[in-house]
């Protein structure tokens, strides 16, 4: 297992894993969507609008999960300075940001029919928004630094500071929100966590799993690209390049 810490081997391993992961992800998506859109009955309160939950909630969960992975990888990269960890962190960021964005957009699209407005400064929403800003900050910082190692280490440090702060932020946002409790929110808390039936729970869990695998598939793909870019002066990469170009030559 340890030998896969070397970029070369990891590149190969990832190459072999991706097709399988992708296939399973696709199947889970189809299954989850089928159960969620066709099988699950309308909600007695929210009608069909609750079906947004099947993407909203997994996205929201993933948005936090990915940040944790990012910070973890950052720490590993910082302490043991393992290239792969750095690459994992930097490639995870855009995906995590995407999940956060999905959670925000689908959430507010859900909010319109539920609360009659696209946005409410509810605690969960607010902390999700802040999480989005944290992601953007991480991405912007890494984009602003050209030297790969510095950008990786700076990003890692930032992610760690973020992780320390996220609980504080979450807690304080909740406090702030319970302080002034507008009518719309209290009604959400009823609607927000409906007594959930198995017919609704199963597709939710399947979609959550699908989102999870999707993340791993895409992050592996991104990592391969990044590995090539960073290792490009090494022998094995030039090998790959030559192989590619010759194959191309044959095609022409």
């Amino acid at each position, binding site marked *: 297992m340890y030998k896969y810490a070397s970029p070369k081997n990891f590149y190969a391993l990832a190459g072999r894993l991706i097709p399988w992961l992708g296939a399973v992800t696709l199947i889970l998506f189809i299954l989850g969507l089928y159960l969620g859109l066709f099988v699950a009955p309308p909600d007695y309160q929210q009608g069909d609008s609750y079906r947004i939950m099947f993407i909203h909630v997994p996205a929201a969960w993933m948005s936090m999960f990915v940040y944790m992975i990012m910070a973890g990888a950052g720490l590993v990269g910082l302490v043991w300075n393992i290239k792969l960890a750095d690459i994992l962190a930097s490639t995870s960021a855009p995906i995590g940001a995407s999940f956060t964005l999905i959670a925000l957009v689908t959430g507010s699209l859900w909010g319109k029919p539920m609360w009659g407005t696209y946005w409410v400064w509810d605690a969960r929403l607010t902390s999700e928004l802040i999480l989005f800003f944290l992601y953007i900050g991480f991405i912007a910082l890494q984009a*602003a630094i050209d030297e790969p190692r510095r950008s990786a280490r700076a990003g890692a440090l930032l992610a760690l500071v973020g992780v320390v702060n996220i609980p504080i932020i979450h807690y304080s946002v909740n406090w702030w*929100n319970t302080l002034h409790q507008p009518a719309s929110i209290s009604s959400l808390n009823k609607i927000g966590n409906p007594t959930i039936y198995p017919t609704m729970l199963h597709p939710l869990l399947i979609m959550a799993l699908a989102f999870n695998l999707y993340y791993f598939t895409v992050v592996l793909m991104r990592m391969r690209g990044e590995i090539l870019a960073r290792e490009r002066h090494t022998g094995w990469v030039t090998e790959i390049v030559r192989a590619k170009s010759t194959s191309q030559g044959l095609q022409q």
Partner: protein
Amino acid sequence: MSQNLLSTARCVFQRDLILAARKPADVATPLVFFAIVTSLFPLGVGPEPAVLRILAPGVLWVAALLSTMLSLGRLFASDHADGTLEQLTLSPHPLTILVFAKIAAHWVTSGLLLVVLSPILAIQMHLPTQAMGTLIITLLLATPVLSLLGSVGAALTLGVRGGGVLVSLLVLPLYTPILIFGAGAVTASATGLDTEAYLSLLGAFLVLALGFAPWATAAALRISLD
């Protein structure tokens, strides 16, 4: 001369756009700043839509002002540090035009994008939908003025330490009329009043700034380089 004035101006303009494209983060950051600042207010003031609705125009406009102001650093600072500005001044072409090209590029990469982003934030601030149109139009009219006026400040504070903040000191007062009429227009249309007068005034500001600012900026640049 083997090239005419316009092509040179275009090359300055393009070059700044290329630089912006090289560093999308630089362009994105003032926008995100815009978003963050707007989102800070509910945290400070409380989430009640009723209150936020009153605040919305003011907050959005102040945030727009601030983020434009922060993006001013990009305008000349780095060119000054690395001596590009000296080369611009030594160009056989009139500096005013080259400066204008730079300002235009700056607006495209800051003000214009603010306009695009504003509706989303307006929704977050529960701005009434009928005011949305006015918000966009006023921003379209006013953001160029912000860039133009700002450029004068940026040029004056070149190479001055703490220039970044100093700029804000110089330009924010100049921005106040725009803020007043811009926010005024939005509030008016939010309360269903007529916005003609506001808009025409903002237009007048724009014309004024177009005629006056590039020239002033060029002068300021020569001064800061001496």
